[in-house]
């Protein structure tokens, strides 16, 4: 099986989808001729022509708004917002229009769009290139939110998202674009070309939305993570020697609650890790769900490790970023509780 970076896997997903379905169109800022600032769409315009892959004006509301109109017409737009930090001008279109079109028209019009956006920090991007806005989407009825953590999943999830009849927010952890990352910024990163999760099958396959994956089996404590934090959690488990079961959520909405509940009932402990700020983050929802569904099986309070409630700082990036040390501390405390 060929090995690909997450960028190549994402590009391949669009390529496969565009080849299979003429209705799939791809556009966004710098997406056409140049292939996107992260090069995820490189070569698509040359292959499929300018009416299937093209550059958009720097106008996020326009990108999403026009995609909604295209979807209502019958196309399947897969658009790129250059960084998740720049989706705010499009937030109204995403949350009040895309999310509700099916419901408000009783299925008369639907909105099968995918909105891709690079998310998260760890690349010294400062406040406006590092945000993790997933909770702003999971709170909205009518949107699906996906966060892949490796090339294989990224391709399968993106194809599934493009084929999905509803709007999907596809958050790409840019820290993982070129390789997994264990949260130790000083340590060299294994590129995907040398990592087993870089194995990406050719052609069409899907990873179903709404299904989590168990990345590391364990019996002492359940760790719920997604995106970059899956690797940070793995590093923390190895470094503390705690027999943690690590669940990679992959899709935040719809959430695979069954996998979560089964694991926490087994381990009796739960640590939640995400990169977004703590307060009202998606971890709050996860924590509440674990309490509601596993209360009588819990042997320790549910713990959350997240970004601090500050804007994402530049120079202090690694103090902000929930690294293996912080996750490890939470694991130890949870085990001792």
């Amino acid at each position, binding site marked *: 099986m060929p090995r690909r970076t997450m960028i190549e896997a994402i590009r391949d997903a669009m390529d496969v989808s565009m080849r299979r379905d003429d*209705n799939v169109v791809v556009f966004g800022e710098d997406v056409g001729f140049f292939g996107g600032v992260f090069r995820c769409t490189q070569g698509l315009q040359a292959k499929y022509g300018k009416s299937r892959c093209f550059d958009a004006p720097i106008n996020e509301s*326009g990108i999403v708004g026009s995609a909604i*109109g295209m979807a209502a*017409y019958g196309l399947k737009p897969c658009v790129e917002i250059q960084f998740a930090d720049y989706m705010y*001008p499009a937030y109204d279109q995403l949350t009040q229009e895309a999310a509700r*079109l*099916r419901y*408000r028209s009783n299925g008369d*019009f639907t909105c099968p769009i995918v909105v891709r956006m690079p998310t998260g920090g760890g690349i010294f991007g400062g406040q406006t290139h590092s945000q993790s806005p997933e909770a702003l989407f999971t709170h909205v009825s*009518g949107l699906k939110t996906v966060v892949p953590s490796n090339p294989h999943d990224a391709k399968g999830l993106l194809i599934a998202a493009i084929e999905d009849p509803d709007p999907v927010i596809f958050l790409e952890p840019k820290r993982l674009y070129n390789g997994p990352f264990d949260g130790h910024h000083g340590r060299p990163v294994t590129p995907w070309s040398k990592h087993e999760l870089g194995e990406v099958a050719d052609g069409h396959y899907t990873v179903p939305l709404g299904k989590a994956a168990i990345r590391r089996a364990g019996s002492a404590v359940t760790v719920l993570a997604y995106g970059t934090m899956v690797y940070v959690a793995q590093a923390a488990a190895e470094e503390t020697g705690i027999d943690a079961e690590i669940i990679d959520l992959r899709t935040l909405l719809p959430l695979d609650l069954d996998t979560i509940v089964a694991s926490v009932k087994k381990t009796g402990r739960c640590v939640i890790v995400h990169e977004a700020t703590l307060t009202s983050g998606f971890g709050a929802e996860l924590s509440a769900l674990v309490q509601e569904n596993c209360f009588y099986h819990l042997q320790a309070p549910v713990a959350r490790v997240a970004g601090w409630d500050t804007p994402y700082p530049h120079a202090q990036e690694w103090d902000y970023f929930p690294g293996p040390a912080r996750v490890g501390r939470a694991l130890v405390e949870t085990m001792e509780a």
Partner: protein
Amino acid sequence: MADAGMLRFHVPEPEVRPGGAPDFSNVTLAPAGSVPRPDIDVDPRTIRDMAFSIIRVLNRDGEAVGPWAGLLSSEELLEGLRHMMTLRTFDARMQMAQRQGKTSFYMQHLGEEAVSCAFRKALEPGDMNFPTYRQAGLLIADGYPMVTMMNQIYSNEADPLKGRQLPIMYSSKEHGFFSISGNLATQYIQAVGWAMASAISNDSKIAAAWIGDGSTAESDFHSALVFASTYKAPVVLNVVNNQWAISTFQGIARGGSGTFAARGLGFGIPSLRVDGNDYLAVHAVAKWAAERARSNLGPTLVEYVTYRAGAHSSSDDPSAYRPKTESDAWPLGDPVMRLKNHLIQLGVWSDERHAQAEAEILDTVIAAQKEAESHGTLHAGGKPSTREMFEGVFAEMPAHLRRQRQQAGV
């Protein structure tokens, strides 16, 4: 240069406020028939002045004059009159129903009937409108059943939208009427996207975007102009300037100079202004713009100069912010009366037939209302099931919603 010292903040004000005498001296009207009708493939740079004049067909004597006249037969005009009268009657009945507590909310079109009724007749089946809440004439003129509209207004058991939408926020793909959003201006860029999709698909259908004067201040209006001009999208960009955005006069969105049509000039989009109370002029301009779009010549921006004679909505009291007599003073008159006079002038209509038509239309609307009310009104009779509330959020119901539906006991 006077006053070079201290700066003063400027807030535009309308000419008059309640108690004052209405003044429309600032509305410069070109005489009917005086504005030329360029070919549809005209170089937009050569018709920039059309963004400042007003295309009019009907003159004071009810005659259709000039290069934009002569496109519609008497039968078509009689049909147009009937549509406008129907919309007006429909509005009156539904406004009353709202006052009687049969629904929560209503928005009428009084004085603006020509805009949507005439525009609809310039489109082909399969074209798509992205309307605001003041274009129900698009549905009426396309033969959408009034009973269905009322069912939606009443949120009753026969409401095609299952009680999920505010009254008057209709949706009908079949009738080229995109689902209305409560968020102003969002539909404008969506219309452009739809038009882009039609072009991408090498289709022949076009889109029409709709917005009010006040809402042109929203960024989505500007997004739409950028996308429409960049991709030469086959879309007609309509701006209905009815002078008021709730209590805010149009100068607040527009500033003190220029016109709404002139907003298109910076984008190289041919931009026209038309007398929105002149059925013939609206239809002719709509036809011109639609033909441009369909001939792959790109977008046209059309400003309909009209006046909202009624309240903004059933929750509004216009006497608090404008003179009561202002609508009577509006220099472009009443669209229904103007078309009626034209038809009389043509010898195909009379006061008697008009009165008779009014009575017939009222009967039809009342009959539709009775039928709709047999399915229930907002607070009485049949209503959509609570189960429906959980359906249709997604194509397939996810587990968490299924659990919530069970919790709700439906």
